[in-house]
């Protein structure tokens, strides 16, 4: 088990390094001057001085220095917002996104899993059909639509939630709900499919034949197996939710990390692009690793194989 874990850890670090190298190549070769701020032209000497200062004239030096810094969690300066280091921006935005993403995933699991189980058990009943419709809406409607509708309903018409912002309890529910919808829909479908699969298997029939209550069979025995696909989805999904969503953050004015992915790319803020990509990749790899470990806990087959 420990050997397996170490192997996975090593593979994860190697992946991270590859991602860094690839992103670096893309970033360095993107046309445009990262220091260009406005419509006005900068004197060539000023651009040269800035390039020298940020080691843009020696890409390989930048490659090593950034990497060495990132290992010490020092992500260097932002090219666009010179008053802030990438580390400060991350430190401000990441906790916000983690809280919001965590909440969104909790909502998604709390609603999605029971909904999926019930629609599998009452297959083709009214609940199943309604859920299917809602799930379709959840998956296909983009967040800027659902977010705006939520905002209009709860903040403007009902007036029971603030328009947006961050810092009070009241700021949490709407963006968390908006962020959770696509994940919730997906989890519902995954649970339903997994449950249907399990419900037709031998051990369920055996359990029922031996006189166990259907409730016990479904929630205790069948659910354990049906939950596995959801568990493997939770890894990447949580990583995605906890690194922020550009749209949700824009609509609800949440100062999270999602906006920085888009803004840094648009601004060609090289330090910030590398930082956001590295953080996302690291979280994704870590969560996948965590899911793998959980798998071993939940699924005896894997535990024994290891």
């Amino acid at each position, binding site marked *: 088990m420990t050997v397996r874990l170490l192997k996975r850890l090593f593979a994860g670090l190697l992946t991270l390094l590859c991602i860094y190298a690839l992103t670096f190549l893309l970033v360095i070769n993107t*046309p445009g001057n990262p220091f260009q701020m406005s*419509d006005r032209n900068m004197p060539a000497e000023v651009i040269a001085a800035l390039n020298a200062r940020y080691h843009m004239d020696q890409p390989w030096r930048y490659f090593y220095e950034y990497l060495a810094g990132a290992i010490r969690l020092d992500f260097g300066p932002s090219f*666009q917002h010179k008053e802030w*280091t990438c580390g400060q921006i991350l430190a401000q935005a990441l906790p916000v996104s983690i809280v919001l993403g965590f909440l969104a995933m909790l909502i998604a699991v709390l609603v999605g899993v029971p909904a999926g189980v019930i629609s599998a058990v009452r297959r083709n009943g009214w609940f199943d059909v309604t859920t299917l419709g809602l799930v379709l809406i959840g998956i296909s409607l983009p967040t800027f639509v659902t977010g705006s509708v939520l905002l209009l309903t709860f903040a403007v018409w009902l007036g029971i939630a603030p328009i947006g912002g961050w810092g009070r309890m009241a700021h949490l529910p709407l963006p968390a709900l908006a962020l959770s919808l696509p994940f919730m829909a997906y989890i519902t479908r995954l649970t339903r499919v997994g449950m249907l699969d399990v419900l037709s298997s031998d051990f369920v029939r055996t359990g029922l034949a031996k006189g166990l209550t259907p409730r016990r069979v479904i929630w205790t025995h069948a659910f354990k197996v049906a939950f596995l696909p959801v568990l493997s989805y939770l890894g990447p999904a949580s990583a995605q939710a906890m690194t922020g969503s550009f749209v949700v953050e824009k609509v609800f004015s949440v100062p999270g990390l999602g906006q920085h992915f888009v803004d840094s790319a648009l601004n060609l803020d090289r330090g910030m692009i590398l930082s956001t990509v590295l953080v996302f990749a690291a979280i994704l790899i870590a969560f996948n690793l965590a899911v793998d470990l959980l798998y071993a806990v939940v699924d005896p087959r894997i535990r024994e194989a290891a």
Partner: protein
Amino acid sequence: MFRALLVTCLTLLVAVAAWFSFGQPRPQADFVYANPAGINTLDPAQLSWLQDIRVSLNIWEGLTTYDPQTLEPMEGVANFPPETTEDGLTYVFHLRPEARWSNGDPVTSEDFVRAWRRVIEPGTALDYATFVTDFVVGAKEYYDWRNQTVAMLAEGGDADDREANYVRTGSPRSQERAGSPRSQAASRAAVLRAHADETERRWAEVGIKATDTLTLTVRLRRPCAYFLSLTAFATLVPIHESIELLRERHDGLPINEQGLVVYDPQWTKPDYHAHGYRGLVTNGPYFVKEWTFKDHMLLEANPHYWDRAALGVQTIDIISYGDINSTIMGYEQGDLDCLLDMTVAYDHELTRLAQGGEREDFHVPIVLGSYFYNYNCRDAEVLGRKNPFVDARVRKAFSLAIDKKLLVENVVRNANPPSNHLIPPGMIPGYSSPAGLDFDPAEARRLLSEAGYPGGAGLPPIEVLYNTGFKHDRVCQVLARMWEQHLGARVELRGKETKTFADDKQKHNFMIARAAWYADYVDPTTFLDICVTGNGNNDSGYSNPAYDELLRHASRENDAVRRMELLSRAEAILIQEDFPNLPIYTYTNLMAIKPYVSGIYLNPRLHVSFKHIRIQKELPIADLPWTRPHRVQGCRFPIGAGSESEIGNRQSEIALQVR
């Protein structure tokens, strides 16, 4: 299993909520307004964006300040007016002794010298370096020399090469040392040392001097009618001496390894503590209390400000919005007192509401900025392919083929006045614009065939470069259609993302490119200078000795009326004959101000003096017409809605009610 999952999730949910509820909510500020995007920088030397300049003008105070209504210069840190010599070349500013920094220190003339030097040092200079280099004696020479030598210091090769390079720049000191043998590292150190000494020596020749702690003497290279407006601008404000704690020093020298004078860029943050630095200190009516990245900035009244009694509001919260739709909802809900920019997909609808008088709190002032397109006037060798726009007749033909009224009224729809001028007409006091040429397709066709392209035959595909977004796409499509229809030209649109657009523009890789210019000060030269040969912002590459000569002549002219005439003649060359650019319209700005806010004047540069803002929420607004924002009074320039006579009527109406 399921129960375990349920219990875990619920526990976590409660935990998150509980943890979050411990956070302190922000107290409500006296005045809250929203900014598009965030504040980019507060470094006076690095300013470029309107929202940054707006805040800077309120946390710092220059030698002079702007009248909030007319933008005329008035008293600031210095007594007004300053002493000037007969020839208008020397200004002696006497600082008021009671002027204080937000930490209580007195403001000294050295603080101005320090700040102005940063404006032209290659490590910190940016857009507005010309404010100093164009006017102050010796500044241009210093700036050029510094840029040159810094570039040489940065060049590759061994130290001896650098020293040789350095010698070529004409410094007598290092010439003496050049021959003596020494190791490379020592040589590099010596070069830097010599460079640092020489830098100080040359700086001493620049015409900015602190004669004593409260006297600043500035010598100009030529008379400048609007110099006291420049000294009010946010680039030329003082900087507190504590910034020196954050200067990068190499080997004890006042310069860094690359020969630059640079400071830790984090110095503008209120909570930045390092090397004894205690956070940002400013000398304006307000100081920065809190600044979180792309979230908000909290300003508080400066307790040591000399004119503290004049301040109407004590705290100001500036929210950076992510999404403009949510922000407008927030304004409607009463979360915001003011929304200074409402650029949104449906802004034409909001403009209509403002103009129809349905929304008294929406305003559309015309601002001192032009939306235009540049023709590339450089020859085919620069462009790398055939460029018909070398010929002024072709440029004129393309300009006359555009029906700007149609374009503005049907596509842009933001109450922008269509314009045939580079300088928005009627907005600069004392300046009368020359006649512009209107839409004339027949004349356009005639000119085009005269230039050798009858009916568009022989024209290469015309490439139009623009940055995508902000309605530019739609404007470009209409331009293309009009050129095809009236001139028979084939047009290719090249929409690019902003950074690559700027890159192409700087490499002169375009035939026609979108452009815009906002006035830096209320004078025609702020626009005319961008067409001068060799100007850093002359994107069209236009060069006409007669035009340059007119501007030079005007700069030497002491008589204000004659000077304006000369400038008007210069503009006539641009918009009647040579057409280096194609003006489309004058910018407007859609903004919303709650009726209980007064003291925000709709001046054409969108400066807001926070000091003059007053809030009167308690009284019924309907009974108090004078508490409305001053959409009419004090703005000497025509405002978007209503003719001037209407404005006059309204003013007298208000006056009657007040009595």
